[in-house]
């Protein structure tokens, strides 16, 4: 298991390097001189040259590339082109908001999605199954910003159950928790749809396996056949989908934070976009990618926990 973990860690390194490379060159092909973007169209040539020097933009591309990689390796993500603050400071300030949102929706997704999927599979092709599938289809169809707007309209504006609050109010833990409910429901319910669907289909695949027939042949009660024999074998594709879903979740969190006017990485990235703050964008993309690589790593390790064959590789 240790060797397996180490191997997975090693595989992550080239992926991260690839991520950094793509981000670096993507930002470099942006039309327009970053120095002009920062200083504005009316800046003097002297000021522009000075800034270019300061930002290292005069150096050859490859040198810029290696110093970029080197800096990231040391945890230096650069400074915002607009506020001149270190990007990492800004990111760390809002990160908890996004993390709590993602974690809450992940919990909603798993806690509701897994049992719903199992139930749909167990009562397959009955009306229970059809209703669960119908709602999961709906969940899969909603773009996150539309469901967010509808939730906002219904519960915050019409019913006034969960008022939308400003960033200052997040200091109060009760307020903060209340403010978390709608956005995390929005993300969580969409996730429920994904998890329900994959759980159902994975369960159905496993149910037709020979060893499930074996379990029934030795008199294991139907309930235990489902929960003890089938579910555990069905987990691998479920874990895969949850891992892959993180990318979607991040995108949806950007939209959700926008609609609910919630502080977080998503709002930060939208602000940076509007200001054409490429250093911030570049740093955030790297941070996001880092999270996804981390999630993949956890997924791989979970495979090892679930499947003894993977463990014994």
């Amino acid at each position, binding site marked *: 298991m240790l060797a397996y973990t180490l*191997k997975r860690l*090693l595989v992550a390194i080239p992926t991260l390097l690839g991520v950094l490379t793509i981000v670096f060159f993507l930002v470099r092909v942006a039309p327009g001189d970053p120095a002009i973007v920062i200083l504005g169209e009316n800046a003097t040539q002297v000021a522009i040259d000075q800034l270019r020097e300061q930002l290292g933009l005069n150096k050859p591309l490859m040198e810029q590339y290696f110093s970029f990689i080197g800096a990231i390796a040391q945890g230096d993500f650069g400074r915002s082109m607009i506020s001149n603050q270190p990007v990492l400071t800004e990111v760390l300030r809002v990160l908890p908001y996004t993390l709590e949102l993602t974690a809450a929706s992940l919990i909603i997704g798993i806690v509701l999605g897994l049992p719903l999927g199992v139930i749909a599979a167990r009562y397959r092709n009955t009306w229970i199954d059809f209703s669960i599938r119908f709602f999961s289809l709906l969940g899969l169809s909603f773009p996150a910003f539309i469901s967010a707007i509808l939730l906002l309209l219904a519960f915050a504006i019409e019913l006034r159950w969960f008022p939308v609050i400003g960033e200052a109010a997040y200091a109060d833990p009760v307020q903060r928790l209340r403010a978390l409910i709608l956005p995390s429901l929005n993300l969580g319910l969409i996730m429920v749809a994904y998890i329900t669907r994959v759980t159902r289909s994975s369960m159905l695949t496993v149910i037709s396996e020979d060893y499930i027939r074996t379990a029934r042949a030795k008199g294991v009660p139907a309930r235990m056949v489902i929960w003890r024999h089938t579910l555990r074998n069905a987990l691998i594709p479920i874990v895969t989908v949850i891992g892959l879903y993180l990318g979607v979740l991040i995108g949806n969190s950007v939209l959700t934070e926008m609609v609910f006017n919630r502080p977080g990485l998503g709002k930060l990235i939208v602000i940076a976009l509007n200001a054409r703050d490429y250093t911030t964008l570049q740093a955030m993309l790297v941070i996001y990618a880092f999270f996804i690589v981390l999630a993949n790593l956890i997924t791989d390790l979970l495979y090892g926990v679930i499947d003894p064959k993977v463990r014994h590789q």
Partner: protein
Amino acid sequence: MTTLLDVKNVSKTFVVGKGFMGSRKAKLQALHDISFSVGEGESFGIVGESGCGKSTAGRSILRLVEPDAGQVFYQGEDLLTANRKRMRALRREIQIIFQDPYASLNPRLTIGRTLAEPMLLHGVATRRDVEEKIQSVLAEVGLPPQAMQKYPHEFSGGQRQRIGIARALALDPRLIIADEPVSALDVSIQAQVLQLMEKLQRTRRLSFVFISHDLGVVRHFCRQVAVMYLGRIVEKGSVNDVFEEPLHPYTQALRAASPVPDPRAKITVAKIEGDAASAMSPPSGCHFHPRCPKAMDICRREYPAWREVGHRGVACHLYPAKAGDAHAA
């Protein structure tokens, strides 16, 4: 009888596992020093249990698997050193039929297209006469002309196996590698397909390398046979000799374990215990010694050299070796 195919000292080792960043690559020796020859119009059988390398041996002849060492002479020409263009031409001469009639046909192509494709590609038929040629080969394997328009899923297992044979015949080959051609079929259908192959052997003067785990089928179809165990040939000779009076203890066990439809010949006493070892870590000395009831000290230490006993060959220390006769095949 002239020799059509002469396989000499062919070996193949597979590397398994990705071998990423320092992790150990496992080696699987699928074939070790395999030699045999097939005469014109002859059927040569290769028998053995799963994982013994018999399929790899068959595929090596066609270079579907590239051997690491050895030679495969077809009419005196080494196939393993033939260039791409020459090999393409030689493919017309040697064809293969497979075990699984469900996997061996492309489900998206009609039988007509499946048969036309190689004919047109190799110029065996022109657009004008291709249909006629297909009809004739279908008739030869006992299928109606309407089969042309149908898809594989519309046929039963036995019929699909006939189609597989028709495809092999499309290029008018002289040698056919038959890899467990009847193993997936029911007994009654098995006999139909075997009879068809016998007929083709007579009418077309085909040679066969016939690979099977079923000693009964091999005894019926082949004259010469090689017995394989963990990548090596352990015994070779005429089918009657080898199955009537097996020399190698493994052949003896295999023969004794093969069920016969006769209640007076019950086989409920196992001659050998244990499983075959993995080809990834074959036992030292003779690979069979851990299961062999007649194992001696030397068997643990030394792989037995090939020796001739009468008209047969065997790799076993039980029989006296003639000096300087190590790899005579």
